[in-house]
């Protein structure tokens, strides 16, 4: 079985069973290290990707369901942002990636794939999210190291950076 989809702007044809969770295709067939296995139950968010711009748990999303769709992983987030914001040139990092580094937010960093993907989705719709909006949007993403306060600060920092970029 071959399934065709677009991953980080590039068309990909993957020979895998259609019920294969997207996560395994991204990790094994396409050698992407952004999405990570955390629970396989859509409970934690470490495997999150954007599917046509919507945050999606790749660990429970069958490959067949993303046929013909645009999948964006952590690796493709800067390009996705540049297209959406109509920037002339894609920055090396999505503003939220830069912000989590600036805030020195992470510890082990394993959950940050999902944190950044979900945060980027939030920032694409809500330009200046409030503390409460961030907490609500991010509540389905767990962090075992306890870095929530720093992720919150990083999302706020990224919002400011993106506002500057729009000027």
């Amino acid at each position, binding site marked *: 079985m071959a399934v065709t989809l677009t991953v980080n702007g590039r068309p990909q044809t993957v020979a895998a069973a259609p019920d294969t969770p997207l996560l395994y295709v991204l990790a094994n067939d396409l050698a992407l290290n952004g999405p990570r296995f955390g629970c396989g139950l859509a409970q934690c968010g470490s495997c999150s990707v954007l599917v046509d711009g919507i945050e999606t748990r790749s660990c429970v999303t069958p490959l067949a369901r993303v046929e013909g769709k645009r999948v964006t992983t952590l690796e493709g987030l800067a390009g996705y942002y540049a297209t959406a914001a109509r920037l002339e040139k894609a920055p090396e990092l999505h503003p939220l990636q830069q912000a989590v580094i600036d805030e*020195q937010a992470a510890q082990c960093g394993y959950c940050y794939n999902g944190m950044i993907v979900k945060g980027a989705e939030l920032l694409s719709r809500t330009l200046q999210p409030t503390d409460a909006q961030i907490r609500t949007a991010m509540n389905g993403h767990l962090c075992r190291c306890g870095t929530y306060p720093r992720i919150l600060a990083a999302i706020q920092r990224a919002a400011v950076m993106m506002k500057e970029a729009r000027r």
Partner: protein
Amino acid sequence: MISLALPRREFLKAGGAMVIGFSMRGTPLAQEPAAVHARAAVPGPPDQKLIDTWIAIHADNTATAYLGYAELGQGASTALLQIAAEELDLAMSQISSVRLDTHVTPNQGATVASAAIERGGPQIRAAAAEARQALLTLASRRLGVPADQLAVSNGIVSVAGDVSRAVKYGDLLGDQPFAIAMTGTAPQKMPSQYRIVGARHPRLDLPDKMTGRYTYVQQVRLPGMLHARVVRPLGQGAYADGARIASLDESSIANIPGVRVVRRRDFLAVVSANEWDAVRGARQLKVTWDMPASLAGTAGLFDQMRSARTTDSVIAEKGDAAAALGRATHVVQATYRGPYQGHMPFGPNCAVADVTPGGTTVMCSTQGVYGTRDKVAKVLGVAATNVRVQYFEGAGTFGRSCYDDAAQAAALVSKEVGAPVRVQFSRADEHGWDNFGPAHLADVKAGVDASGRIVAYEYDGWQHVWSTVETSEQLALGTPANESPDGTSRNLNKVTLGSMYDIPNLRLNNHRVPGISGYLKASNLRSPLDVSFAFASEQALDELAHMAGIDPVEFRRRNMSDPRWLAVLDAVANAAQWTPRTNAAARTRGTIVTGRGVGLGTHMTSYGAAIADVRVNRSTGAVVATHMYGAIDAGLVVNPAAVENQISGQLVQAASRLLKEEVTFSRTNVTSLDWNSYPILRFAEAPAVTTIVLQHVDQKSTGAGEEIMAAASAAIANAFFDATGARLREYPFTPARVKAVLA
């Protein structure tokens, strides 16, 4: 035993179309830098008395530091390089480290007990100073000037007062060994000379982690590698029982081509070239297990512990606590309970093993590569030197989660199938088969005199020690369950239990419960047992403050004289703008009530103080920590930014452990198997945090990775009392428990 007799090539063919995908990524071994490759010819550990074991100088005027402590997300890999760069007079950009590897890096012991900086720091500092001294000797000869007239900046040695006469480290030694032993006499910098140590430095590991360039152990892929899943009962039973296969129907997965069953005694796994097929196979395989009903169940646990035949010892004794209690003005006597809790790394454990006749390589997120080497060698029945273990970071582990278990499982399957094998634990494997942090039961009696002085303190504590046999070994070899001896982190902690106070009459009675039969597997979980110890001890003392009508901060101050304990308490009280409060019981009206509490504690070293603000909904039983403040004195703090992150994370994790986390189990097995049945603190309920690092450049560095868990947990418990006027003496503070105590 069903063994796979297929040669490697045949098996891969049987595995199907996925094989091609494996060669998309190179093997990590093929990417070995020169600084590693030359050393890796012989098994370690390398001789710690040689400078070359620790430091290499390269022709491009950079250096490699060979560190034996692991990056666990705590920032150790950055801070240890700060120490090395400082002593070598190199810029941070001129020095790097290599992967921990039993063929390459020194054996400094496991990365436990917050020891990376406390114990590892002085070792790398001494080695770097020796290297600098040796380089100055070479430069002295080259420049014809005595070494004491030379200065070094960024690896360039120059004659003092004449920078035109200079030579680079790289030109003195470029990629050649020092080939000399450490003298033990190399001068080290005075703290007043530090410019890199003590300064905030961004973590070196973060950019790659934030972009998908970092390779976590879960992401290691080797050419020809197969994917395996272990198959076990859903949730462990009693440790001694292991798990016994009653029946196995291999034909139940016959419809999934290329998936094989590997069995050795009761160790069971499925393996396939295709990961999804391995997952499906593990789920679908029909196997029934003998699971005896030998656990007490969550509800019966504490009665079981109290009535156990314990091994008793006195951990600390001063004066006569029993007599002093009789003379005290106010006495508190209460029982406190802390549950089993799990490590639950966010990415379940994973390991890759390649067992070949010529030797074995294992990639694992272990906290100690040399310890893992011994455990893998044991299940393979080979000498330890036949095994090479390389460290790949996993998700934060916070103690001994199932990493050695995963490494053994990968080795067992690789040996059977004759190919490199990746074992990825499922969420239920990790939640169900963890080496949990042990449960704890405490009886505390304490008394104050009329002036508010603590005059008596007696603590009786029950808990079991750590399991030593990994599940894979237990199942595959039939090795009987066994426990560690008594000791630090397994007995009552005389540092966290009362040592910060000037208590004239004190006694700590340790009741070691036999943990092999009828209990869960256990091991060290961040700040082992201290959350339970401080939960009991600091609540009891808080009760005394309340009885004596003294503000809890003032009460603690009045009973302490150690300036470093006083300083952390004052620092956190100032940061939180603490104002005296003595009327907790009066503030109990309304559905939503708020309160604040204070706690002190640490693990074995350092000093921790915390304050928590909580909000309690008396009607729903919901407790939220809204703001947490934490102050740590860890002596010389090498990278204050990293320690602030550690404090912040501990405050949040302590809130999670106090408010949410509990391993549940029936008579037969653990039943908390995912993030719904074992909830942790979520984003919406995360506290704001304020972190304070007390810098003491003139003191030796002590741990900071677990030293405020105890204080933070106690602060939340005391804040709950402040908000409600009620004492909750068992955690986690679930809505049901809260409503029961407020009813």
